[in-house]
């Protein structure tokens, strides 16, 4: 089976090929959606953002130079749009959402259960990380981005990528410890 590469699709999109756009969208929209959803934490907003991301691809395809993978380029655009949208929100909105998103740890039967289910506890802690830490963990573990690619997406030096990932993992361990799960590190 022959699969047209993302780079070829981008070339066709630059020439106004709607079908190529459909193929690229089908190939990447779930990954981009999940990346954005983890940042904005709202499904409707994430859906709006991904159509904006791919509209940018439609408009900017002629300028794509292939210096990074198309998926890396898509995540860069997605990140920029998600963070711009978050900045536009008022502080009240953020406070309300944060209150809804952060769980009360005390005497919660869920927490008691989570102590027994380490995997579940870790997934809860992953959701409680800051956006900065969450995005780097997702990019490395889920979106399979190299140090160089993460640096390009986030716009930070490669050395900072490594230390940020280290501190994100450290924070994750601290959150687990607060839930009674001591991993013996750091």
């Amino acid at each position, binding site marked *: 089976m022959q699969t047209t590469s993302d780079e070829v699709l981008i070339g066709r999109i*630059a020439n106004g090929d709607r079908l190529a756009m459909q193929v690229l969208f089908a190939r990447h929209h779930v990954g981009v*959606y999940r990346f954005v959803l*983890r940042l904005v934490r709202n499904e409707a907003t994430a*859906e709006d953002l991904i159509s904006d991301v791919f*509209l940018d691809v439609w408009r900017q395809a002629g300028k794509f130079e292939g210096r990074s993978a198309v998926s890396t380029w898509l995540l860069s655009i997605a990140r920029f749009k998600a963070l711009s949208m978050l900045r536009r929100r008022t502080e009240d909105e953020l406070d309300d959402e944060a209150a809804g998103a952060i769980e009360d740890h005390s005497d919660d039967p869920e927490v008691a259960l989570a102590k027994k289910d380490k995997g579940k506890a870790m*997934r809860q802690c992953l959701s409680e990380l800051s956006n900065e830490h969450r995005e780097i963990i997702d990019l*490395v573990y889920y979106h*399979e981005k190299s140090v160089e690619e993460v640096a390009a997406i986030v716009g930070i030096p490669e050395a900072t990528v*490594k230390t940020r990932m280290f501190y994100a993992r450290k924070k994750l361990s601290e959150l687990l410890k607060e839930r009674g799960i001591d991993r013996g590190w750091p």
Partner: protein
Amino acid sequence: MNTANETERSDIEELLPWLAAGTLDHRDTRRVEAALAEDPELARRYELVREELGETIHLNETLGAPSARAMDALFAKIDAEPARKPVVSLNLGARIGEFFASFSPRTLAWSASAAALAIVLQAAIIGGVLLKEKDTGGYETASAPTTVSGEGSYVLIQFQPQANAGAITNFLETNKLSIAGGPSAGGIYRVRVAAKKLAKPDLDRVVKELQHNTVVGFVAVTE
């Protein structure tokens, strides 16, 4: 441990997430694997990284997918855009890709058939030479002998990128595993671990055992 060694260890520890995800280059992969082989504490921390990798994938995979509304909205916006003139891409890689993509499937099929025939002939010659030298009793691949039906217990496995075919075959044979599907995105295979449905504690135990094999990058229970 002296300061230089501590710095080196700290540098290597920072790379563990990329080793687990299979996105390190060959040089760093060799460097980190050598350190892991010599340093039990570092190896223990690598297990923590692999736990994080598995749970991050699990978490993201439960996020679902966007509705058709996103695609409808996108193409409504695209339809509202002004028509554009064709542009010539400056990207050489894309142009070469477009060159091959422009062939009809029939042309490509003939080219591929010719290439495949050349490979088969080459393999036949090499095989003939080997058969003359050694009388083998034959072999079967780990996944080929049985027809994998829907029955049984399955796990998802992502092999280490540096694991070669021989090591993977040996791993499958030793553990009596059959590849039932894949690879899907991220190089993940669906692997049958038992012909009958195992109880969850038994399946968890199997997953735990498989996790320790060096060819395995990531393993998780699946339905």
